[in-house]
């Protein structure tokens, strides 16, 4: 069965998500927003895995599994990041990224 929507559209969406994530990562000031941006980047790669698997190797499942794996990893990473952000909040009472320059000094 030929898919209705062709591959390019999926890739356009995922590229937009990817660069939106990067743009957000660089420009946002709030750590939570930065974390969300990272999630966008990761999700866009998940879409790419699924799409390439679906269109290029329809009879195999490696891409699907890899995107599942990546979702698991990103969930764990989010948990760690949230924990770090909470600790930062406890220390400096805000989550502004420009206030976190301790490593430089």
């Amino acid at each position: 069965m030929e898919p209705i929507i062709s591959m390019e559209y999926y890739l356009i969406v995922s590229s937009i998500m990817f660069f939106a994530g990067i743009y957000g990562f660089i420009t946002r000031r709030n750590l939570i927003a930065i974390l969300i941006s990272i999630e966008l980047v990761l999700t866009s790669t998940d879409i790419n895995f699924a799409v390439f698997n679906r269109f290029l190797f329809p009879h195999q499942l490696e891409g699907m599994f890899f995107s599942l794996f990546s979702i698991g990893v990103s969930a764990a990473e989010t948990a760690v990041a949230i924990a770090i952000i909470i600790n930062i909040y406890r220390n400096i009472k805000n989550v502004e990224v420009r206030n976190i320059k301790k490593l430089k000094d």
Partner: protein
Amino acid sequence: MEYSILILILPLLGFLTLGLAGTRLKGKTAGYVGTALLALAALTAYCTAAQYFNLPRIDGIRPSLRPFNWEWMRFTEHLHIDLGILLDPISVMMLVVITTVSLMVHIYSLGYMEGERGFQRYYAFLGLFTFSMSGLVVATNIFQMYIFWELVGVSSYLLIGFYYTKPEAVAASKKAFIVTRFADLFFLIGILLVSYFTRTFDFGLLCSGDSALFASAMGKTFMGAAVLSWATALIFIGAAGKSAMFPLHIWLPDAMEGPTPVSALIHAATMVVAGVFLVARLFPVYYFFTPEVLHGIAYIAAFTALYAAIVACVQTDIKRVLAFSTISQIGFMLVALGVSGMNGHEGTGYMAAMFHLFTHAMFKALLFLGAGAIIHTVHSNEMSRMGGLRKAMPLTHITFLAACLALAGIPPFSGFFSKDEILSAVFAFSPWMGAGMTFIAALTAFYMFRLYYNIFWGKPAEHEHPLHEAPASMTSPLLFLALISLVAGFLPFGKFVSSNGLEYIIHLDVRIAVGSVVIAIAAIFAARSLYRNGTSAVPDKMAGFFGVFHKAAKNRFYIDEIYQFITHKIIFRCISRPLAWFDRHIIDGFLNGLACITGKGSLAFRWMQTGNLQSYALLMIGGCLLLLFWVLFL
């Protein structure tokens, strides 16, 4: 006779226990532990001596035993360093001397060092010294001897600098260490030269007199002298450093900054005679292969004896008089060795040197310990602070007098017998030298009795507190040593020790004996008339008469100043300064330059480290894009 290893192990054990756990011991416990261990070691040494000298002779010669010989480091077939125990007449005799004097000093120090800070450290160092000195005399090979030789130097350094808060003591310990170490450098070169040609370190082989062993060195010369002469002369420089021969004697008078019992043990009786022992140990090598070096030793030693005796006559510090007297007496021993032959009557010198070493160790230790008792009471080293002490300190007075008589060579004290043997050996070698040595013996009697009358007679100095006799722990070693000084001369020493191992029968040469006694008594009466009342004006007049000479002698003929000049003005200024400049500016400058460039470079890049997470991310993404661009389009 395997048990003889205990003589080494027990003091070492004492050093380790007191050194590691000494601070936990309260009061005088550390001293009692050290003394008990040393008493056991001394007992072992006496057993060893008794058993050894009762062994049957083989072909009339005393056997040389090796209860232990352990191969320590093996490099090649010929080059291996052993550690072992060699028992032969001189090493057994030395063991007895070392343990006896050391035991006396241990007992004496219980009283003398009581309440001192670092009491247990003192006993630990005494143990270390006794261990090293015993190891030195029983060495089976020249390299083992060198190892213990250095250990002895270290323990001497530690004990001279025992009062490490006193700047003079620190300077003296440093001086002693550097001077002896400087001499030991030549000793090491000598050892390497000898062993290079003979392919062995072993004393048994070296002293066998086998010329095949030295065949490879024959005919080789360096700067106009045979290589073998160079080697034995270099070894003698090491011996001269330890035995304070001119011009390497400068450390010994300063070493008197250490505690007085230490001066008795190390700088009078045992360590300073290590050089004599070394020459005696290698005597066959000197005698058979380099007799000219042996004669050189005799001349150097005779000059040293004269020099030290003259200086001793004008010193005012009681311990320094004794120190110069020690130098002079070691000179006597080395003269005797230097003029000695091998067999029969010619071997008198060797026997006499060993005999004098034995008796001198006893009465010189006694003199130092007596001086220590006096200093303990008077709290000063200066003779002017003493005087009229014979009533306050009767025991010290009697024992000190006995030692003075022994040193002056008055019969029946032990010094008479040994000194007479030395004089007869020297007269047999050269009558002129014999006359010179007799004159030095008279000087000896003079300066000893100058010391004696100044301390015990004359008018008493003012003291804040009443003077008192030393405690029993200090007087009992004095009495014991005085007893030995009285009877040791009657030992048939030639039966125990002789140059070729055969029995040697001592016979007094009446002419020399009478002559030396008469001249010694004359010197004693001269000292008595000059110093007995302490009011005579003659000494000052004599000082004025001799003028410059007296002043020079008082300043030890400016030898220290000459050294000072050579080291500071020449070596430091012309060699050390440029080297220091090179080190500071070229070598350090290069490394500092490297560090400076790195520092400046990193400062130049520092602006990149903003500490801002997002700028890092931006840079990283920019980098990724550049790489992508490069991969795709270039």
